[in-house]
């Protein structure tokens, strides 16, 4: 039986790891590949590198990082950010990334998901969705693009289902209301997405305590849980999280 995965996420800017609170106030937390290798030793099941600058000039830095990661990491890793066309994805896969995470590009050009899945397999194509709850509308969320700057007014659940149909291998779902707040995942959002897709959902945004990880899986019905700052600043180790999940009856890799 597949274990539930714990995935540290490293937001990378100019070749360094950063993590903002609600996407602002960036802090420097070190070299991304070194940090990822440390997470491998702690028992991380995968790591995600998100290039949050993704400017054209910085692209070679990110590709060099991905290439270094292929030598120093012995677990799968995903690179997200800065993909516009199939050629960008091909370059990153060629550099050694196991998977790419598509966000705005997939939303604007959904056929890119299918093209990438056909070229590299759907398991290599994550679609990242940044969703924010519509105020006063109950359980409704819309998709935001460009790091939360653009509200598409598109229903997040519907987009997740569409991304699935286009050939996505996984959904990386971030609640922008929860992100950086450390109050736990948006469980209603996570569960709503998990129930309309037949691919794994990675819950992201908001963990601050061990219980939040378990809730994402047990109540949010996520297949994997992702976090950043709690790991980077040593508030908890990946191993502690996995031992806690195991204590709650969740199957995780501890060997």
């Amino acid at each position, binding site marked *: 039986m597949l*274990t539930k*995965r714990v995935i540290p996420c490293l937001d990378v800017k100019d070749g360094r790891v950063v993590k903002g609170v609600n996407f602002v106030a960036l802090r420097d937390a070190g070299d991304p590949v070194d940090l990822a290798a440390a997470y491998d030793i702690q028992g991380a*099941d995968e790591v995600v590198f998100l290039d949050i600058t993704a400017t054209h000039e910085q692209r070679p830095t990110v590709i060099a990082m991905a290439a270094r990661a*292929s030598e120093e990491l*012995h677990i799968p890793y995903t690179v997200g950010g800065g993909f516009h066309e199939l050629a960008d994805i091909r370059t990153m896969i060629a550099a050694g990334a196991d998977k790419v995470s598509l966000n705005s590009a997939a939303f604007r050009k959904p056929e890119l998901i299918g093209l990438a899945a056909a070229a*590299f*397999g759907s398991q290599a194509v994550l679609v990242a969705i940044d969703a924010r709850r519509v105020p006063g509308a109950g359980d409704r969320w819309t998709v935001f693009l460009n790091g939360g700057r653009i509200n598409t007014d598109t229903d997040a659940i519907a987009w997740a289902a569409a991304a699935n149909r286009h050939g996505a291998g996984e959904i990386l779902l971030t609640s922008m209301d929860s992100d950086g707040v450390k109050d736990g995942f948006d469980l209603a959002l996570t569960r709503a997405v998990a129930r309309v897709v037949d691919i*794994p959902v990675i819950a992201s945004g908001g963990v601050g305590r061990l219980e939040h990880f378990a809730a994402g899986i047990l109540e949010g019905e996520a297949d994997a849980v992702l976090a950043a700052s709690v790991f980077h600043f040593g508030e908890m180790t990946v191993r502690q999280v996995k031992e806690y999940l195991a204590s709650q009856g969740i199957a995780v890799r501890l060997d």
Partner: protein
Amino acid sequence: MAFVVVDYCKGNLRSMQRGLELAGAETLISADPVAIAHAEAIVLPGVGAFADAATFMHESGQMAVIRERIAAQVPFLGVCLGLHLLFERGEEGMDAGHWAEGLGILRGEACRIQSIDAQGLSHKVPHVGWNQVHYRSERSQDLAPLFAGIEDGSNFYFTHSYQGVPSNETDVLAEVTHAQTFPCVVRRGSTFGVQFHPEKSSHKGLAVLRNFVRFAQAGGVGANPCGEGVLT
């Protein structure tokens, strides 16, 4: 002589090469049939789809030389798609009802994995993530070259939508369960196939590669260089 990681021009093979290097192997990534013909051991990695890879291997001359080297008992490790390619044919990347020709070392075929379990419940495909490799207990001797010192039920990293369907049960050494239970380690002589990715399976995956390197350096076939068994 080197361990040749066969390049069929579908993806990055550096992590596989690095895993073998850490295990002490001299390595070479090559698409050249001549290099493959002179390999100390051959590693066929898992990137891309069956039909694409098989077509490239056939047209480049890799297919013929790999068959010939395997027949000569050169140690061989097929990973993921590299395991699928050991079989006679595969359906991945073909229109329904059509098959691409594989190496044909093992009888059987590579088919899409089942998504519905015995209770009728649906499981997600691709099968992505860490899952437990269960040894066939009666095959522990045959498993030992690759899994010496590794506990039965250990987690390894899988990412695939297709599986090997062997005609001969005797080729199967270990299994994994998703919607259904299916083979994840196959062997005939010096030829091994693993469905999981050792190069992505952290320290236990590196241990498998280290064991394979020792097995190959000891000459393959009946070698059990670690002198220890699997842990059950």
